[in-house]
């Protein structure tokens, strides 16, 4: 029985520290949020700790990185207390993550089809034909034009955006309860992006999946998500309702919004972000 009432994911005072030879680097410094069956966006500039926050939930931070939190619970189960083995059964099946860099995350010497069906055949014990059918359906859903060909292709034969969509398909196939999507659409044009977002949206609305949507595209997040966390240097500096993002108060959020070029905008140099040391406090 799934707890329909309680939040899906609770994170309180999450810290990620890298003990490097040159001293500790704090990548995430006390992030707290709760996620229900909704779309929560995380935005922020490069290096602000978005990816590390997402990876922490799956405990996928590599040494010398360390994860600490007062509480990090998935459906009430403390994730930090789980054994590596129970963690492995959660990963992929219940909690899935679309990695930022599909070219790095896909296996370069295994065909797309084998990678897509591997989980289905091993975990769900599906026959080959059924697994292939599921994979084809999913590729079609993410708007891949000739799914049969892509199934037989190797990652280097895909365009940037196709790699990204294959990664998304791979994570959606097991129908996870929580999806962490790290820049899932950064290489997609707006029309394809719309379709891919529609699938995620459907999963949230119809199946009650929780979605943690990490992106540096503020416009996109403000259109697609319900709530948004704005991160700067490992901290959440602002939390707003997505549709209010353009009215955000924090100068950092405002600065990020101003940097974007606009169709028909002036040709002069784009404004760049002037960082204020006090934001990091």
């Amino acid at each position, binding site marked *: 029985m799934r707890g329909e009432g309680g939040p899906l994911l609770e994170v309180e005072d999450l810290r990620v520290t890298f003990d490097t030879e040159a001293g500790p680097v704090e990548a995430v410094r006390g992030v707290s949020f709760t996620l229900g069956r909704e779309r929560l966006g995380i935005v922020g500039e490069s290096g602000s700790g978005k990816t590390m926050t997402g990876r922490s939930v799956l405990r996928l931070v590599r040494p010398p990185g360390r994860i600490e939190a007062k509480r990090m619970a998935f459906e009430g189960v403390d994730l930090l207390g789980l054994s590596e083995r129970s963690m492995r059964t959660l990963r992929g099946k219940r909690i899935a993550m679309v990695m930022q860099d599909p070219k790095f995350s896909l296996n370069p010497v295994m065909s797309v089809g084998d990678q897509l069906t591997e989980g289905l055949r091993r975990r769900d014990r599906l026959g080959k034909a059924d697994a292939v059918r599921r994979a084809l359906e999913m590729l079609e859903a993410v708007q891949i034009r000739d799914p049969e060909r892509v199934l037989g292709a190797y990652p280097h034969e*895909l365009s940037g955006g*196709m790699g990204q969509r294959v990664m998304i398909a791979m994570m959606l196939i097991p129908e996870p309860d929580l999806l962490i999507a790290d820049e899932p659409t950064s290489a997609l044009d707006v029309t394809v992006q719309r379709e891919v977002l529609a699938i995620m949206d459907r999963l949230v609305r119809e199946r009650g999946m929780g979605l943690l949507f990490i992106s540096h595209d503020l416009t996109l997040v403000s259109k697609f998500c319900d709530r948004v966390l704005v991160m700067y240097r490992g901290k959440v500096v602002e939390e707003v309702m997505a549709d209010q993002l353009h009215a955000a108060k924090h100068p950092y959020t405002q600065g990020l919004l101003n940097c974007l070029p606009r169709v028909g905008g002036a040709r002069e140099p784009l404004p760049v972000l002037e960082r204020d040391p006090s934001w990091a406090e």
Partner: protein
Amino acid sequence: MALIEIDDLEVTFGSGADAVRAVRGVSISVAAKESFGLVGESGSGKSTVLRAICGLAPISGGAIRINGAALGSRRDKGFARRVQMVFQDPYASLHPKRTIDATLAEPLTIHGLGGRDKRVVSALEDVGLDPKFRFRYPHQLSGGQRQRVAIARTLMLEPEILLLDEPTSALDASVQAEVLNLLSRLRAARGLTFLMVSHDLAVIDHMCDRLAVMQQGMVVEQIDRAALADDSARDPYTRELLAASV
């Protein structure tokens, strides 16, 4: 005369039943010092067009001419000095085991050019990177810094044409603004010709004078910036793209 002329270009990967026609009869021409944009659907062959110019994709038909001279099947050192490319992913385009210095000096060694120290330092300066980055390794740089190094590398041979494959799509908004400003400044200062791919119409609109819209390996519309602004795009995909981008 146009500096880059692409005439009915066809690119086919593989052969027989598995052949993939990634580019089907694309014709565009870019004048000297112009900035030309390619936008389009994911997988529509934008990157492949750029790679074909560089000899990194199998051309199965049509012709590419640079300054009137048709390119053969091999790209020689002379080509390298006229045309350079910036790749999409700054995390994948720098050799992980070489310092920035080694990466920037490599083209000079290949072409037997002297004054390496001076040139490397001035290239870093041109892209607004502090000289202290010179002996760092790529993993010690942020995405935006890496993309600056990649741009500096293309400038080492002082080419006249820069091919840019989504130079900012892996970067966040603030860094994107910095890199776009840098590219505009370099183009003005050096009289460069840009052929730039992006899936973001706003970026292309900011950087380019004319653009071609691609879908399924074909150019469906060529349009200039003014026409884009007064909404006179005709192709349905272009209109859809425009509608979603404002």
